[in-house]
């Protein structure tokens, strides 16, 4: 017997309210990370052993700066979602779980904010 209200059918939300969203965002960022991640490996490989001026100029170039920003945003979302699942799997005390989930969010945001700041500073800071 179907216990769902018509509204729930329309909204397509499960009990977690965001489960389907979470699943899809993880996949979208995974695809983005696949391409951008390979690009990052290539970029770092070319920059290995070069001097500061080369690194700065390379990171500041528009294409690299834009791709890096996209990578950082995608990776931060992906890792935040992934770690959330790990935390929910292993941390069961309600207080500890909330602290861990908050820390997870803040860490992802911190990594993203500092990396994006760095790229913008390299691009525009002179």
């Amino acid at each position, binding site marked *: 017997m179907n216990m769902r209200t018509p509204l729930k059918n329309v909204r397509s939300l499960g009990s977690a309210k965001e489960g389907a969203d979470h699943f899809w965002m993880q996949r979208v960022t995974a695809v983005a990370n696949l391409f951008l991640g390979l690009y990052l490996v290539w970029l770092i490989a070319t920059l290995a052993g070069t001097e500061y001026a080369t690194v700065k100029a390379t*990171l500041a170039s528009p294409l690299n700066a834009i791709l890096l920003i996209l990578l950082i945003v995608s990776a931060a979302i992906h890792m935040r979602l992934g770690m959330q699942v790990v935390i929910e799997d292993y941390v069961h005390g309600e207080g500890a779980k909330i602290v861990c989930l908050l820390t997870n969010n803040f860490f992802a945001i911190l990594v993203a904010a500092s990396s994006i700041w760095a790229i913008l500073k390299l691009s525009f800071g002179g």
Partner: protein
Amino acid sequence: MSQARSSSGATGRPLSPHLQIYRPLINMVMSILHRITGVALYFGTALLAWWLTAAAIGPEYFNFVSGIFGSVPGKIVLFGFTWALLHHMMGGIRHFIWDTCRGLDIENVKLLSMLTGIVSVVAAILIWAAVHLAG
């Protein structure tokens, strides 16, 4: 049934053994490695953020950070990060294939799991060899 009271959890009742019993099957191992590499990469992004902010701060600090990354322990960490990235990437592709409902029979599961493990190690070694040889 044996008296498996090796752990009792919160309620004190006996739990059925799992890690002590199961043979490490290739798909099991790749699955937990996917999670472990994911967590390792999670913390490793802090290294990327550190390197980028160092580049933005200035040449002296950047060279200092570069020196740390270029040291022997630094390179070991970076190689580990490279492998973790490739392993997690291969695992992700494996999951994508399964998302399309393909490759779910046991033979293909084993094949995909083995490919994940082998390709990630080989690719990590190749990439580092290429960078090293190119100077």
